C-alpha cells in the first residue's frame, strides 16, 4: 500500500478536486465528465456488484451501466467460465458432486439465464 507521502499526495489531489472544476474524458463511454466535487474520475461500467450469501448459497447479480457496458450475457458466461477454470485448477472439478454442479451452472434457468437479461436500456 502507498506510503504516507503518496497518501498525502492523493489526499491533496482529492482536495483539489473538491474545490475546482475539472473535466475528464472517459475512454470507454466517450463522455465528457464535469467533475464539480470530489469524485473518482475513471469510467464506471459496473454500477453494482452484489454477492449475498444465505443458507449455504451465493447469490450474485451485477448491475451494469449500459452506456459503457454492452452484452451483459457475456459477463455471465465469463463468470461461469472463471469459476470452472478455478475449480479445474484446484482439482475440485474431479469430484463427482462438483462436476455435476459446475455443469448445471451453464444450463441454469434462473433469472438472467438463457440469454435473458433484465434491462430497460
Amino acid at each position: 500500500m502507498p506510503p504516507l507521502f503518496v497518501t498525502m499526495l492523493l489526499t491533496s489531489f482529492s482536495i483539489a478536486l473538491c474545490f475546482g472544476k475539472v473535466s475528464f474524458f472517459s475512454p470507454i463511454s466517450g463522455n465528457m465528465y464535469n467533475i464539480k466535487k470530489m469524485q473518482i474520475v475513471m469510467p464506471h461500467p459496473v454500477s453494482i456488484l452484489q454477492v449475498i450469501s444465505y443458507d449455504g448459497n451465493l447469490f450474485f447479480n451485477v448491475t451494469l451501466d449500459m452506456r459503457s457496458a454492452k452484452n451483459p450475457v457475456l459477463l455471465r458466461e465469463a463468470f461461469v467460465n472463471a469459476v470452472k477454470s478455478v475449480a479445474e485448477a484446484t482439482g475440485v472439478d474431479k469430484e463427482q458432486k462438483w462436476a455435476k454442479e459446475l455443469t448445471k451452472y451453464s444450463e441454469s434457468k434462473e433469472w438472467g439465464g438463457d440469454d435473458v437479461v433484465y434491462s430497460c436500456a
Partner: protein
Amino acid sequence: MSLLYLILSYLSFCDCNSGTVYFPTMKVKLFQDMAKNCVGSSTTINDILLLCISIAFGSYFDHLGIHRSDVGGVRLLLPIANPIPPSMYNEGEYGLRNGMTPVIVPLKLLSDEYTSMDALKDIQSYMTKVKQSNTPLLMSCINRFLQPLVPVEKIAEKGIETFQRVSCVWSNVPGPFEAGKICLLCHLYS
C-alpha cells in the same frame, strides 16, 4: 429470497441506463473446497471469489475490446475494523460502536497470461497488502479528528457519495451457512 430478488430487480429498473445480469446461484461449499485445495492454507473464500470476479471482468472487458489497463471503474469498498478502546471514547459516548474505516481499492484485473494459481497468488498478496496497510488507521484518525468539526448533514452527504463511487462493499462476512431463525423468546426472557 424471491422477495429479495423482486426488490433488487425493482431497484435495477429504476435507472433506465442500467441493466442487471443475474448469475447462477452457487454453493458456498464449492468455494470452500476450492480454497481448501489450494496450496497453502491461508487461501480464503474471499480470495477465491475475488479471483473469479477478476477473471470474469477481465475476460468480459476483452470481449468488449476494452484494454484492461484502461478500466479503473470496478472499485471495492473494504470496511476495515479499527476497534477503539473505551478509554479513547469522546465524552458522553458509550460502547457498542463500529470502529470501521471504509477503504476504496480498485478491483485488480489480472493479465490473461496468468494461470489461475498465479493469479490467485497475486490477488492474495494484493489483499494482504491492503489489509496490512496503515492507510485505514490513518484515515480512521483523520475521521475521528474531523467528525466533531463537520456538520452531521455533510458527513451523511459524503457517506452517500462514497457509496456512489464504489461498485460493491467487499467484506469478509459471508453470511449464515445454514437457514437461521430469530428467537424472539430468547430476547423476551433475557
